[in-house]
Every structure is written in structure tokens, then in C-alpha cells.
């Protein structure tokens, strides 16, 4: 039993390091902020940074733990962003306390994204590999496109929906158009703060890491490693795949809430909710290590900050991402790359034994 107690505490310790890293980073940034040593540019990046971390960690649950390549993560983020922003706009006067309102907005955005995750997951998870990737991409694009044609307004008679334009909503005098098609939602209260972002990161990590190290997580990973064997020992494949997928979608929704409440204007565009965003998040996951949660956190932070800090490199940012992505895959997955890895490992082993 000795081996087991040790390995249990090993994962616990590893999780604690991850939490500790996030908290430490928060404290350091806060100190710099108080000391006025953070440029306004960087300060503006803090909430998006939290959003990227949550997105990367949640996508890693699908890609790394469940082993399904989803290219529609931004779609779930879009759902979370729009539902929560809609809620906050409607409730701005009804719930004046921003803390309570934002808490409810987070819940609503998360739950709606989870529902979409289940709805989309049921058909999509029957597919495998490339097909699954392309269909999740398709769903993501559909969500973005549909949001762009929705007009939703409110007057004393209630809500009105149209897919044409604001005028065809037929609002009374003084009616309020909340969702304006491609113009999106304007006037969302800016409730997102760095602190809330960090708290949401910690909650995300708590959910994902505890899920992985539980009976459920083992079932999900077993399905990833060998679906047929998992079925043969009585694992319900559909249930666990769907569970992992919808938790991942829900957390993407949370990130969307954070995003929506950081801007006064929320629009669904290719660059924020299109598949380019999904792929950017995928880059974080791949570079942090597929299946490695702490790696996702670090990769999201480094890859968001680095190009901003090296402003001159900004033009090359995506190019560098692309090269890193290809190089990482070749290094980790090709026979040649694996050989080099083995050699590096051997080299360090030799040095260790020499020192000892």
C-alpha cells in the first residue's frame, strides 16, 4: 500500500503547485498594480488573460483527457458570452448590486454553454477523429452566424425577436433593442475584474483537475485510450464522452461571460468567436502539452503576454505560433523527434549518475 499513498499525494501535490502558481502570479501582479508599475496596455490584458487560461484548460479536457479534437470551442464561448450579456443587460436595473448580478450571469452563461455542449455533443460524439473536428468547427461557425442575424428587443409588452432588422421588431416608443444582429449587444456592464478572473481560473482548475483524478476521469481516459476495451469492462462510452464534452463547453461558456463583461460592445466576429479563436486556444493546449493542465495555464499566459511585450514581433505572432505548432508536433510525434527526446533524457541521466 505504500506505493499507492505516495502516488496519491503526488497528484495532490502537483495540483497544489498549480493552484499555488496561479495565486502567486495574482499576488505579484497585484503588487505591481498597486505600485503603478503596470502599463495600461498590460492592465487591459489581465482579464483576457484569465479568459484564455480558462479556455485552454477547458479545451484540454476535451482534447487531452477525452482525446477528441474539438475545433468549435469558441462557439461555446460565444454562447456563454451572449446569454450572460443579455441577462446582465436585462437585469441591470432590476439587480443593481453588481456582485450578485455578475454571479448570476456567470451561472447563466455557464449553464447555457453546457446545454449547448450536450445538445451538440449528442450527435457529434458519434463521430470520430477528423469528422468530429470538422463538425465541431461547423457547429462553432453556425453559432457565430446565427448570433449575427438575431435581433432582440424589449418593450412594455415583453420581448420581441426578429432575424431581419431592428425595425421589424416593432417596438413601442422607448423600447430597448438589446441584441442588434451584427452590432451585437452594447452597454453590457463591465463587471469582469482581474480578481474575479483569477477566482474563475481557480474554480476551473479545481473542477478539471478533480474530475481527472476521479472515477469519472479514469473512465474518460480509458475510453480515449481504447474505446472497445472500455466497453468490455462496462464503461458507458456515450455517457462519459458527453460528460467531458459538456463540462468543457460549460467552462468555455464561463470564459465567454468574462469576455462579455469586459467589453462594452459584444459582437460575434470571426476573430473572437470564429474558428480562428478555437485554433488559437488549441495552440495553447498543444504547446502546454496535450493532457497537461498546468502546461495549458503556462502556455496560455506566455503566448498571450509574449507578443504583447515584444510589440515589434506582433506582425510575426501568428507565424511564430504556426512554426511552433508544427515543430512541436514533429518533435513529439515523429520517430526522429522521439529519438532526440530519448537522447536528451539519456544525456541528463548520465549527468545525474556522474554527479552522484
Amino acid at each position, binding site marked *: *500500500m505504500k506505493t499507492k499513498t505516495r502516488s496519491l499525494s503526488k497528484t495532490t501535490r502537483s495540483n497544489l503547485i498549480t493552484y499555488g502558481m496561479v495565486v502567486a502570479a495574482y499576488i505579484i501582479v497585484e503588487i505591481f498594480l498597486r505600485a503603478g508599475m503596470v502599463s495600461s496596455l498590460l492592465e487591459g490584458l489581465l482579464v483576457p488573460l484569465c479568459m484564455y487560461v480558462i479556455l485552454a484548460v477547458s479545451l484540454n479536457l476535451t482534447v487531452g483527457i477525452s482525446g477528441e479534437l474539438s475545433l468549435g470551442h469558441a462557439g461555446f464561448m460565444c454562447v456563454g458570452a451572449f446569454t450572460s450579456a443579455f441577462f446582465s443587460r436585462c437585469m441591470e436595473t432590476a439587480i443593481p448590486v453588481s456582485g450578485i448580478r455578475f454571479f448570476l450571469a456567470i451561472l447563466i452563461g455557464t449553464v447555457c454553454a453546457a446545454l449547448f455542449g450536450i445538445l451538440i455533443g449528442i450527435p457529434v460524439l458519434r463521430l470520430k477523429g477528423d469528422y468530429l473536428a470538422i463538425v465541431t468547427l461547423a457547429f462553432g461557425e453556425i453559432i457565430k452566424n446565427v448570433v449575427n442575424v438575431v435581433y432582440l428587443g424589449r418593450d412594455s409588452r415583453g420581448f420581441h425577436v426578429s432575424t431581419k432588422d431592428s425595425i421589424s421588431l416593432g417596438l413601442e416608443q422607448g423600447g430597448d433593442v438589446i441584441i442588434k444582429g451584427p452590432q451585437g449587444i452594447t452597454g453590457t456592464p463591465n463587471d469582469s475584474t482581474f480578481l474575479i478572473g483569477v477566482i474563475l481560473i481557480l474554480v476551473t482548475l479545481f473542477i478539471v483537475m478533480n474530475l481527472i483524478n*476521479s*472515477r469519472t476521469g479514469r473512465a474518460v481516459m480509458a475510453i480515449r485510450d*481504447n474505446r*472497445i476495451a472500455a466497453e*468490455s469492462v*462496462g464503461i458507458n462510452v456515450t455517457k462519459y464522452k458527453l460528460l467531458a464534452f459538456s463540462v468543457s463547453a460549460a467552462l468555455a461558456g464561463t470564459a465567454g461571460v468574462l469576455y462579455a463583461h469586459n467589453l462594452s460592445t459584444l459582437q460575434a466576429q470571426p476573430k473572437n468567436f470564429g474558428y480562428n479563436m478555437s485554433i488559437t486556444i488549441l495552440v495553447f493546449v498543444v504547446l502546454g502539452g496535450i493532457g497537461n493542465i498546468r502546461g495549458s495555464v503556462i502556455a496560455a499566459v506566455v503566448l498571450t503576454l509574449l507578443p504583447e511585450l515584444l510589440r515589434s514581433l506582433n506582425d510575426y505572432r501568428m507565424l511564430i505560433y504556426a512554426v511552433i505548432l508544427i515543430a512541436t508536433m514533429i518533435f513529439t510525434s515523429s520517430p526522429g523527434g522521439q529519438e532526440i527526446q530519448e537522447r536528451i533524457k539519456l544525456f541528463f541521466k548520465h549527468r545525474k549518475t556522474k554527479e552522484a
Partner: protein
Amino acid sequence: MALLEVKNLGISFGGLRAVDDFNLTIEQGELYGLIGPNGAGKTTIFNLLTGVYKPTDGYIMLDGENITGKKTIEINRHGIARTFQNIRLFSELSVLDNVKVGLHNHHPYSTLTGILRLPKYYKVEKEMNERAMELLKVFGLDQEADYKASNLPYGQQRKLEIARALATDPKLLLLDEPAAGMNPNETQELMKTIRFVRDEFHMTILLIEHDMKLVSGICERLTVLNFGQILAEGETAAVLNDPKVIAAYLGE
């Protein structure tokens, strides 16, 4: 009553009759062998018994319950577990976790319990660890519990697959060519392990094997399959001396 009763089982793939009029009765605690030349339909029968394929004819009774046409996971819950001809481990999981996945349905707690780390989580995980270590010990794998399954040598991977199958607490264990790729020493050891599993767990075992030493050494009864049909069945020694069987193996 027999533990497993298969009557008139058959399946066609398109026009091809892969298995035809297959009958099998296995008593509780028996060690039964299913042999035959390559392509005779042995693995197809395993796939029928475990619900990977749905039979086109016949029925399968396990311990008095009709399990014909049920899904793989339901059949596992009814009490059939198996290993695979080409080893199918959860390669990225640890040896211990492989067995714990096998224990999945017998030590439940909800996903929420797992995420929130409620007391039940710790209690059930402890039970699972203890039970899994017991099983690993039987197969001499307890020292390797923390290894990644794919890092085990071949022989131990086969054993781990059996341990994982046993973790689901089956009534009937199906072994698909357990000695494939093993050297004579490893096969000897495997024979001991299989006997041990039968005696210790009071397990009923049906195995497919090409290694005649293993078959004649441990199987009590045999069925010989050829071209999807039963060629001979009965006591091991008698079947192996049957001229029809010898002819089928050597080719006429």
C-alpha cells in the same frame, strides 16, 4: 444448470456465414477451450458472446438469463469479461488505474462527489486501491502499479489485461489467445496463473488458444471449430485424438 448455454448461434456478414449453428454448454467452474485453424470463427464467437456483434440466429443464456443481442456494457454487467487477441490496455493510464477502470461499476460514486472531493470519494477510492492492489498481487504486478501500462513488457501486459477483466467481477472469463507471443517459460507460468485464477476466484474460463501444450495442459473440455462450424467437442484428450481434428489441423 449450466453457466453458459449457447444454442444454434449464427452470424452472417453480407453473404458470408462466419459462424453457423454453434452450440456450447459450459458448467460453473469449468476450464473450457475453443480451438480451430485461423479464420475458423473463434474470435467472432467471442465477439458474439460479448455483444460486439449481434447474432443473426440463436440465443445465449448466461446463468439462466438471456443475454442475446444485448450491448457490450450490459453483457459485462451480467458477468462476462474478456481479454483481446491484440492486447487492448488503457496504454496511457497506470497499471493500477487500468485495474481501477475495471472496478468502475462495482465501486460507484457520482461525478459531483469526485469533483467536490466529498468524504465518500476518499472512502471509495481507498477501497478501490486496496482491491486493485490485491488483484495486481495475484498476477505479480503490484510492484509495477505506478508504471504506465504501455511500459510493461508483453507478458505482463497480457496478465494486466486478465487482471482488469477480473476486476469487473465476472462469472465467465473469456481469454483470447492468452499465450500468443509468449515464450515456453512464460506460457508455463501463464498456465499456472490461469489455473490459480480458476481455483482462487472460482472462475469459469473459456479460452481460445493455438498453443496445444497449454490447451492440453489446462483445458478440461474442448470445442473445435472449422469454417464457422463445430468439428468436434468433448473431453480434451479424446478431442485432440479425433482423426477429423488432426486432419483439420494438418490439412488434408
